[in-house]
């Protein structure tokens, strides 16, 4: 059964996702952050859909279960598009947009092919284990992509505070979610008591962190990345 905390997370998540979209429109940054805006809108719609499924079929129903995991996977693929757009922003001055697009298309096709192969091999038993495995792999790929982007930011000494904070927030989201999925695979017994809270909290974390960045950090704000790398002297 869902408690007040679940509903609170749901409502806060939905409102902040809409808030990010409003911030993007208000700051007239729609073209610059188009994939991010589409992701936030889709996430808000998925939230509404989840509410509908819980009300009609129940929280423990198979329908809600598959709706949750498959929409989660689709949203993760949408989030890949956002990462690719961050890569484009990062390498804009190096005129490599063409190659990034090519690599992005290749990555999406490989992900689709990999998913197809996995689904094809598991079609006789599309079980709980499979959707968790798929979620874990997608989030892990997202984490690796974000980590590579963070490496490029450090290497090229990128100073745009907004881009830095958005990439870091994304990294926190992907790594925490990938870790949760992996732990769930390893210790399914932890799921009902502990792990079930992490994806919704992270689902709220990402829009809150992005909303904060849009609201508080201007596009012109600059930050030295050397300050962010933790080094003990």
């Amino acid at each position, binding site marked *: 059964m869902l408690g007040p905390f679940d509903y609170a997370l749901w409502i806060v998540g939905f409102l902040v996702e809409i808030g990010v979209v409003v911030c993007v429109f208000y700051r007239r940054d729609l073209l610059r952050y188009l994939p991010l805006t589409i992701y936030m809108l889709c996430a808000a719609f998925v939230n509404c859909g989840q509410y509908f499924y819980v009300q009609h079929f129940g929280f423990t129903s198979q329908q809600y279960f598959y709706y949750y995991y498959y929409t989660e996977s689709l949203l993760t693929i949408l989030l890949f598009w956002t990462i690719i757009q961050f890569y484009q922003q990062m390498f804009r001055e190096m005129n490599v947009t063409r190659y990034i697009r090519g690599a992005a298309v290749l990555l999406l096709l490989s992900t689709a092919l990999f998913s197809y192969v996995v689904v094809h091999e598991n079609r006789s038993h599309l079980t709980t284990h499979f959707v968790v495995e798929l979620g*874990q792999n997608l989030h*892990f790929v997202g*984490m690796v992509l*974000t*980590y590579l982007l*963070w490496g490029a930011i450090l290497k090229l000494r990128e100073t745009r*505070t907004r881009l*830095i*904070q958005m990439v*870091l*927030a994304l*990294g*926190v989201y992907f*790594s*925490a979610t*990938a*870790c949760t*999925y*992996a*732990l769930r*695979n*390893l210790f399914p017994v932890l799921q009902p008591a502990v792990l079930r809270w992490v994806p919704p909290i992270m689902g709220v974390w990402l829009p*809150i*962190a992005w909303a*904060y960045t849009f*609201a*508080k*950090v201007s596009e012109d*704000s600059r*930050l*030295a990345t050397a*300050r*962010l*790398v*933790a*080094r*003990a*002297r």
Partner: protein
Amino acid sequence: MAAALICVISVAVFLQFFVSYCRSVLAVSRKVELSDRVREVSGIANRSVGAEDFSRLVQLVRLCPEQGDDETEIRAVGAYYGLLRIIKYFSTFLIPGFGPWTERERRSCSHFAAVALDRRISYSRDLFTQQVADRT
């Protein structure tokens, strides 16, 4: 095996991202000079903000009316401060080189809390001025 590997890598990457994110939030507040008013209120008029002042400053922040937009940052930095305390505790025995670094970072957290307190005091004064103006 794959899940265990993903789990270990994810934890390491998560810590790195989380620390960097908190440092990016702290870096913005590091540039802000504290007002005399907040120094007086928090009892740090004649010295710089110390690493141990964080909890007291956050308690003072909680006494002020909420501004509504800084709660998440305060929580994130509070979690970071907690993580630093744990690192400090273990580094005393295991890696003494981390000691000065955790001290610097904890001081930055305290400075961040002082800046948040300064903002909230200004906000409270604005509210008070507005109420007085409405009454007259």
